[in-house]
């Protein structure tokens, strides 16, 4: 059981898919302008990684080796389309904001990477936990980046204004650069920097 706990917790911080493995960078730049979008995107990726890992792990002994990547792709595509359809039905405005990026979860290296590296060689429950853990790790970074981008770029948190009008009257202005993708990359760099100073074993000699 300790092993499963480790499987679940490791990708959240120590082996974070974005800040340590540097996977899924594109989408973390694109959807972190606002917290709401980042939150839903993180949740969607979590569901997709968790369920695809689970399904692939259940099928792992039956999958013909020569077409295993195709099988993984079909399973991932199935989950992504389902998530996309559900969002369109029950969270239309968010789905409109995220537009193509939900569909592009399929190209997120984290999903296929975890299936290929973990789910095909481990039991279903462990794979589910690994998938969920990686999804949460991804969501966590997205939310941290989006928090700073929304706070400094728009002065809001989850769409609510948190910087009082009085501050603006003193001449404070929102940082327009925060809205643009380069700032997400810089923030991400800062997060990796902080994490590497805490986890010395990540530093290359």
């Amino acid at each position: 059981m300790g092993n499963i706990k480790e499987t679940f917790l490791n990708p959240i911080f120590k082996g974070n898919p974005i800040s340590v493995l540097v996977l899924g960078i594109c989408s973390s730049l694109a959807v972190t302008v606002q917290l709401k979008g980042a939150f839903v995107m993180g949740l969607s990726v979590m569901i997709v990684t968790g369920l695809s890992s689970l399904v692939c792990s259940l099928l792992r002994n039956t999958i013909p080796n020569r077409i295993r990547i195709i099988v993984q792709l079909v399973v991932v595509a199935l989950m992504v389309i389902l998530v996309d359809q559900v969002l369109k039905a029950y969270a239309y405005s968010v789905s409109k904001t995220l537009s193509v990026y939900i569909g592009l979860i399929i190209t997120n290296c984290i999903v296929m990477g975890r299936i290929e590296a973990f789910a095909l060689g481990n039991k279903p429950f462990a794979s589910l936990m690994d998938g969920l853990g990686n999804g949460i790790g991804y969501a966590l970074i997205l939310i941290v980046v989006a928090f700073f981008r929304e706070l400094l770029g728009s002065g809001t948190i989850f769409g609510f204004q948190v910087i009082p009008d009085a501050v603006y009257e003193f001449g404070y202005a929102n940082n327009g650069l925060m809205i643009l993708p380069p700032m997400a990359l810089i923030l991400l760099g800062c997060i990796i920097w902080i994490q590497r100073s805490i986890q010395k074993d990540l530093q290359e000699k």
Partner: protein
Amino acid sequence: MNTNSNTYTVIYSIILVVVVAAVLAFAAMFLKPTQDANVKKDTIGQILTAATFAGVEDAAILDTYKAEIESAILVNLEGEKVGDLNIEDCEVYGTSDLKKQIAAEQKSLPVYIFKNGYTVVPCYGAGLWGPIWGYVGLEKDLKTIKAVCFGHKGETPGLGAKIADEPSFAESFAGKTIGEGEILFEVCKPANTQVDAINHIDAISGATITSQALGFTLNQWFGFYKNYLAKNAAQEVVEDVVLDVEPANTVEE
């Protein structure tokens, strides 16, 4: 069992694809009504924006529409009324309905007339990656643009998508008028314009094709509505004539 044999691989892939297709088909059928309702609500939201009711809460969209709409009619190319849209059911023409009208010989073009005096007409056309559409709110003279709301399926984020995302682009339409003659409306660089600036909007930098497509679409649809808009300037007179004719017919019968 040998999971690497050709037969096994082929059968496995067939079964997998069929199962996945079945799951997706079921999900699509199950979720379709909810999704359609969302799309319709979104369309009405856009129409409301063009009629100066921008930023209505999601939940209040349908009620606001019912409360503010005066009449929703269908007109043909000659500008004659050919039908009504049911206001109680919030019946509107979605993008697929608009698409059909472009090629149709007998067009039925929706016109939404609001109680505050603004008239909203739609447009629909091909953008760079997919369809673009929009709603134009006109003042009582049916020439001056009050507000617009554009939408798109998948224009490039940050470039073509600005037709929908960039408030300043939509705001630049306010006060412009539909021109006369060949070019009714234009979206291009100021240097390229051959016509009076009053029916011209600055294109979006870096989104040449989307801008041109939008200009073409607006021009085409304003062309469709040309007769209706022209007639409506003398609408009251026309209505009087209709009223005069009807009693006469009754007498004859």
